[in-house]
């Protein structure tokens, strides 16, 4: 019976992928035990004991590699676990750097390399797009008001104002562009990406690269309904050949290893690359629901078992997120607060 640790179990209004991963793993093998790695005692996954068998509070990655890895070592030594599937941006680099150390402890991962991880920067997208034969919206990287103003007059309104890794806003005029610029700079710093708005269908692909140019399945979707935070609430599977070919081209060109989300805008004639995330998206259970259990396949790859590669899902399958609630004893909360595990 395998034990697998999963992070991102914060199933809140900006959900992490952990609960979707846990649900997929349990669907792949009901005997499997899932350990949840949480950063706050209030993360809902801690209380979803039908999916997360045991939970642990982790130190923030920003507190340092040693503290973080020591916590994993403690969990490994006390309870034993075979693999870990990290799902949050902020901890990925730490896991990538620590992958060999974890491997030596007997904790398997299936992660991108650091070079692959670096491709997620929006300033790298033009280079990736050119290599795989897709387009990117006209993009200008700016670090000052003067450059912002110049970029905006070059691209015209509306224009996208984005952080290099996080945040994206559509600005209709200079006042909005300046406000978004300031907001992103104050939270994430420079540089800022100023980008042309391309009209078309926004589509995403989730997949797992095998690290040798192939993959363990891809699923293409379109978000039909999003929350005010831009998170998918309803979606539909699509089979857009150009989109899927672009995603395959990406996996093949970079020999991508591990989970990824490939975000694009598809027009009648072209695919525009918008973002690459080196992890599962929070809606990853959608792939499992249409018969391509990517988290379970990734786990198998991590454990050295050759996963299934078929990915002939049906277009027109609907994904519906919904809110739910549960009532439990104070006991569980008390335990995780006082001992850091439950």
């Amino acid at each position, binding site marked *: 019976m395998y034990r697998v640790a999963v992070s991102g179990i914060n199933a809140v209004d900006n959900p992490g992928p952990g609960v979707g991963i846990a649900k997929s793993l349990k669907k792949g093998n009901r005997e499997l035990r899932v350990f949840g790695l949480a950063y706050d005692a209030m993360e809902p996954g801690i209380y979803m004991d039908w999916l997360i068998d045991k939970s642990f509070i982790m130190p923030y990655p920003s507190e340092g590699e040693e503290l973080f890895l020591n916590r994993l070592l403690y969990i490994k030594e006390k309870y034993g676990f075979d693999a870990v599937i990290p799902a949050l941006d902020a901890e990925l680099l730490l896991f990538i750097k620590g992958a060999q150390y974890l491997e030596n402890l007997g904790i398997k991962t299936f992660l991108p390399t650091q070079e692959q991880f670096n491709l997620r920067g929006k300033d790298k997208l033009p280079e990736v797009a050119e290599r795989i034969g897709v387009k990117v919206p006209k993009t200008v990287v700016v670090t000052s008001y003067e450059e912002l103003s110049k970029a905006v007059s070059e691209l015209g309104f509306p224009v996208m104002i984005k952080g290099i890794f996080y945040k994206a806003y559509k600005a209709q005029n200079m006042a909005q562009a300046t406000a978004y610029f300031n907001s992103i700079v104050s939270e994430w710093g420079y540089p800022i990406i100023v980008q042309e708005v391309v009209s078309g*269908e926004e*589509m995403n692909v989730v997949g797992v690269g095998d690290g040798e140019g192939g993959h363990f399945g891809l699923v293409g*979707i*379109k978000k*039909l309904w999003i929350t005010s935070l831009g998170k998918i609430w309803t*979606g*539909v*599977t*699509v*089979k*857009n*050949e150009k989109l899927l070919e672009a995603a395959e081209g990406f996996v093949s060109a970079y020999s991508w290893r591990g989970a990824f989300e490939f975000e694009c805008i*598809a027009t*009648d004639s072209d695919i525009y690359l918008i973002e690459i995330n080196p992890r599962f998206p929070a809606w990853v259970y959608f792939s499992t629901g249409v018969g391509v259990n990517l988290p379970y396949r990734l786990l198998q790859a991590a454990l050295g078992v050759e996963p299934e590669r078929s990915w002939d899902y049906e*277009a*027109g399958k609907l994904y519906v997120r919904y809110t739910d609630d549960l009532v439990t004893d104070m006991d569980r909360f008390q335990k995780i607060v006082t001992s850091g595990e439950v």
Partner: protein
Amino acid sequence: MGKLQKLAISDEGFIFDPETGSSFTVNQTGLFILKLLKEGKSQEEIVEALTEEFDVSREEASRDLIDFLEQLRINGLLREEKNV
């Protein structure tokens, strides 16, 4: 394969485009026309069929068909059907 051939069309008039994820609804007349388009019928044949099926003149049927085809084009559903 033409775009129309890829569309999923239900008997209730629900149209799903698997390439874009977009969906549309059409009334019974629209559904009637779409089915004939999928069968590869010409505009002339469709006008003929419309006058037989519904109580409309040739002119009216022809005008409505042109309008409907334009709507399909606007929504990107007739991209590759050059002969229609």
